[in-house]
């Protein structure tokens, strides 16, 4: 800045100058306390199957999660949390996550999300317990007339983001 710049009254900001060293210290401390990333670990990730159907107004999205280890055995006793967000507006339209309850079948968990509108939703599956993982699936939630239950299909490029118009011939969810 040019040295001829005159001394002007600065805008007050609540003694903020005193905050600066504390703020910088907080930043540094937090960055240092997180551990260094491990190199690619040997995989213990579960295979996550996700099948969802929509129904009712809202609409409601009922999802069944199937958790399997690599050897095909069911993952029992896991805590599974389902959430959803709209990719077209991240950090808004965030749906309250729901804890999925075991259905009785080995490795299978079920939860129902109350969405705000039709369209493409990214359904997040957060797994903790015996295994920890987090996966997200983009699903197109269709308009479902009356009391029908419609399968939420994997979203593809070009799907209407908000309207969730049904694509003929689209069926079911998909596996990881």
């Amino acid at each position, binding site marked *: *800045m*040019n*040295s*001829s*710049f*005159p*001394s*002007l009254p*600065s*805008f*007050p*900001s*609540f*003694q*903020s*100058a005193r*905050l*600066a060293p*504390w*703020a*910088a210290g*907080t*930043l540094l*401390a*937090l*960055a*240092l306390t*997180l551990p260094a*990333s*491990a190199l*690619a*670990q040997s*995989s213990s990730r579960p295979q996550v199957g996700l099948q969802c159907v929509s129904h009712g107004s809202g609409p409601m999205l009922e999802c069944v999660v199937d958790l399997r280890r690599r050897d095909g055995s069911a993952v029992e006793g896991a805590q599974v*949390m389902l*959430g959803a967000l709209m*990719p*077209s*507006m*991240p*950090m*808004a*339209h*965030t749906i*309250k*996550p*729901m*804890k999925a309850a075991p259905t009785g079948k080995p490795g299978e968990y079920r939860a129902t999300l109350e969405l*705000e509108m039709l369209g*493409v939703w*990214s359904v*997040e599956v*957060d797994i903790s317990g015996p295994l*920890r*993982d*987090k*996966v*997200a699936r*983009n699903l197109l939630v269709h308009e479902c007339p009356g009391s029908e239950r419609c399968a939420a299909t994997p979203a593809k*490029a070009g799907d209407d*983001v908000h309207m969730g118009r049904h694509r003929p011939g689209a069926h079911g969810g998909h596996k990881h």
Partner: protein
Amino acid sequence: MSASWVHAVGLASDMAIMSLLALSAYLLLLVGRVSFGQQAFFGLGAYASGVMSALFAWPLAAALALGVVVGALCSWALALPTMRLSGLHYAVATLAFGEMARIALSALHWQRPTEDGPVGPAGIEGFRDIRWLLENDVSAEAYLLLTLGLLAAVLGLLMAAERTRLGTAWRMTGQDDVLTAAQGVSVARMRLLVAALAGGLAALGGGLYAHRTTYIEPALFDPMLGVHAVGYALLGGLGTALGPFLGVVIDLGLLDAARLFPGWRMVIFGGLVALFLRWRPRGLLDEVLVHRLGQWLRRQPPAQPPNPPTAP
């Protein structure tokens, strides 16, 4: 762990991350620039830091730092050719850049095979498995603390900067660049510096977002994100760096999370922004209110009268 707790932690993380993006729009508004392209730097930061941690196993701090550098450099590079644009032309130029960046990310394929399948950006299908937090067993609560700490640091630094000549020069540039230049301040240098800072801030938010959700895709970084960032700054106020944070709290905290007006949130948010632009164009915490609050906070308590001598 209850669903409500998970929701609260997620919401607080989102608010902190969105605040960083809103602060980047705020910085540009201070120097008289309305940018609808900050989502591009958010996305570039998300991809850059995600690539470094997921493909090259960089520590989180280093990956975030690289994202900030990428965002700052790209924003600075955009500011160079758009230096002479003003008002609507600048806004449209930033919007166009935002879309160019989103389309470029849609064409980015850079994957590396792993035991669990390929990892890395896969064009329009997005970039999955940014698993640094999972692999290092960092809980959502710890990550929230980190995010809040970074936001507090940024807020503190910006509020401190605003008390200096530099901060005054930013506001002067935004008010009248000709008069500012007549005072001997390099308007171009101010705008380049602020553009770089704003890009870096948006990229920091993007990096934090990518690691929080483990999944990003180009569709996330569409113009609505940038429009919201500007809206938060305008709603919360341009008088202090706390303004954009307040805007985020009003929208995400009150309108969205509390579900006060289900289905009408976007209408109410848009209406609020429109009303503020008409009746309070510098936002809730505008310069006048901040000045008054500052005077009130600095006010010294009246001197106590000396105790009257007591009779023996």
